């Protein structure tokens, strides 16, 4: 076997062959371009802003990545963000306790995730439809809880959403922390490996004695929980929990996951990739504002960059069947 003889070129080819790389390249090119195009771009303040803006999508996308690796999909995250924010705010308001408020938000997210999991594993409802149903229900419940009117939400949630440690936004720090944790979970724990196995070949995983249902419950629960955390951060950042919060996030989140090289067909996916994906999307938004590009061109360019980032990879990889 020649495995070890040409280690570095092999590693290099290997690196080039990964989707993450093509996203990283686009990201880098964009950073270089922006550094020349706008003097304020490469300031610490602006870079930290971009990081903070990426953090909520990235955090929610971490959970989504696991769901998709396990061959599921969670369309409900956007609504669950809203439901959790609202629940946290109301609990904090009625009990006067910050801890209970945070617990309420995370609890609501977890509950929604478990609900999705039950629909999938017990009622055998296709996750796309199950979570589409939850998308509507969660938002409806958030509306019922608030009567459609935003509830103010400050205290600890604000610290999560708007606080800074030295100059680094708390939510950005949290994103990196969670990314490290998830990287670890995905690659180094039994649960993580079971997630890959379940998504790659559910039947084989089951025959190997893996509890695929438990694995599915786990990923949906995590996705719900992180959507809850996302809701907390967003509401904290805004000091206000609106039932409308998070509307449409599901597409951004899923786009970040797929940009980062996770396959919708399951079994494959990368945690660093999803962080790159979320950063790319935030960077694009920032770039347009900095360059003052007309919003009509923003919309076109955004589409183009998404296609480009994945296209480089696709052309090089060739057909899959």
């Amino acid at each position, binding site marked *: 076997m020649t495995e070890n003889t040409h280690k570095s070129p092999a590693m290099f080819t290997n690196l080039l062959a990964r989707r993450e790389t093509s996203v990283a390249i686009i990201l880098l090119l964009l950073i270089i371009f922006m550094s020349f195009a706008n003097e304020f771009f490469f300031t610490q303040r602006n870079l930290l802003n971009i990081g903070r803006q990426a953090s909520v999508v990235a955090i929610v996308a971490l959970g989504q990545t696991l769901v998709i690796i396990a061959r599921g999909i969670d369309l409900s995250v956007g609504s669950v963000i809203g439901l959790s924010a609202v629940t946290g705010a109301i609990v904090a308001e009625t009990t006067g306790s910050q801890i209970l408020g945070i617990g309420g938000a995370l609890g609501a997210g977890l509950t929604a995730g478990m609900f999705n999991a039950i629909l999938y594993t017990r009622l055998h409802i296709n996750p796309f439809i199950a979570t589409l149903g939850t998308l509507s229900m969660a938002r409806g419940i958030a509306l019922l809880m608030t009567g459609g009117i935003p509830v103010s939400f400050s205290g600890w949630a604000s610290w999560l959403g708007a606080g800074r440690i030295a100059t680094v936004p708390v939510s950005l720090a949290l994103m990196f922390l969670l990314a490290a944790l998830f990287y670890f979970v995905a690659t180094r724990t*039994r649960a993580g490996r079971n997630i890959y196995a379940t998504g790659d*070949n559910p039947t084989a995983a089951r*025959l190997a004695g893996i509890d695929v249902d438990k694995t599915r419950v786990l990923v949906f629960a995590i996705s719900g929980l992180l959507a809850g955390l996302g809701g907390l951060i967003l509401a904290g950042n805004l000091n206000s929990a609106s039932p409308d919060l998070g509307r449409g996030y599901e597409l951004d989140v899923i786009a970040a996951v797929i940009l980062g090289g996770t396959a919708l067909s399951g079994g494959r996916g990368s945690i660093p990739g999803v962080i790159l994906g979320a950063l790319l999307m935030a960077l694009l938004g920032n770039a347009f504002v900095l360059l003052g590009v007309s919003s009509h061109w923003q919309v076109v360019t955004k589409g183009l960059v998404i296609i480009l980032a994945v296209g480089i990879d696709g052309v090089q990889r060739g057909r899959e069947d």
Partner: protein
Amino acid sequence: MKNHRLDINGVTKSFGPVEVLHGVNLSIEPGAVVGLLGENGAGKSTLMNIVSGSLRQDLGSMRLDGQELDLRSSRDGIDLGIRFVHQELSTIGSLSVAENIFLGDYLAGKGGLIDRKQMAKRSKAALAAVGLEGLNPNTIVDTLRPGQQQLIEIAKAVVVQPRLLILDEPTSSLTSVEAAKLFDLVRNLSRDGVSVIFITHKLEEALANCDRIVVLRDGTLVSDEAAVETDKARLIHHMVGKSSVFEWKGSAAKPGARQVSIRGLRDKSHLKPVDLDLDEGEVVALFGLVGAGRTELMETLFGFRKTAAGEVIVGNQKLRLGHVPTSVRNGVTMVPEGRKTRGILPSHSVERNISASSLDRLSHLGVMRSATERSQTHDFAQSLRIKMENTQQVITRLSGGNQQKAVFARAVMVAPRLLLLDEPTHGVDVGAKSEIYEIIHELAAKGMSVIVSSSELPEVFAIADRCVVFSQGELVGSLTRDEMTEDEILNLAFTNH
């Protein structure tokens, strides 16, 4: 009773209205190696699925070492030391070799984290036992060829010594060297008291390596004999109810009636330029060790794989290379290697699986002629004796061998001028095998040229007019029927090694 490893008592199983196992009884002693034989669809895999816990019987009971077995999932079976290497490849492509070997039972170190070092170390030992000593346990399984993946599954089954090891057609994707290693392993395990149930369609293998051979026919156990007291003919008789083995029927080739010529064909990776001609009615076997380049040659000439250079003429037609639809239109079809991944359309009925390559002929102005389709597919299914309820059945409900026959029917129904068969009898029972040989012979007699890749020498001798040998991507020799001997073929195959 007490010193039986496994007792199966009156196990009965139905799928829907069809009963596929009728009260099967079987006992196995510790350390025994039992061959389980039977035609495609006889119920072998189903019985083993029940023994391993992945299916539940309708009636009957089982005991393991005297202990009543109540298995709710394959997990329960695994926990009791029953390991089942399935007929279908069940590796997880995105995980490493070591992770596959410890799939579902990863070794954990401190704090529940996977202990990669320990897993790699212990994988190495298990890999060595199956003859993969050189393989790096951190390799991602996707990058390995099917034979290696199969061996990894076996390594997974024996990494912790099981009480009962079930091997469902483990040798169908292995080379003879690899298979020999496997049988060494089986003997060692048997010596350590592991009982082994071994399913195969290769009778020689069963006779040479098993203590006992039992035969399942249509869901009933019809014989149970010591290996030394039986022989091929008897076993075939038990399996199919009659004693028929296919024998060389003479050549149907029309010398000089050139039908296919391949010139300087190579792909973009490891194939060296190939020149090869076939006459009408000629059957050419491709032989080679694993990785010799047979699959690549066939896929390249079929248009499935990108061509770097060369030309292919079929009839008087020069093929547009790299485009399968035109190849099929010009009378070339292929039965690919890997029934599940590249052969069947899993959600489609048997009928639609069979007709998939003939849609041109079965339609008029783009509209399907359903009645014709129905009757023609039905005829082909019958003539290949595909065992099924009816042609509207979803193909995945058929046993593996019968699925393979449906894919075979698809390729033949086009009435091609050149038929490419890549390991066409993988997982096919003896009866069906000789039917397939018979059909190949008949097709050749009608003027069709056939290229068959085969890893089984008996198969080569049963059907080939000529044997072309590949070694490391290069065509190293061509032997006529008169020149063909086992030694000569094997010698050529090792040319570049």
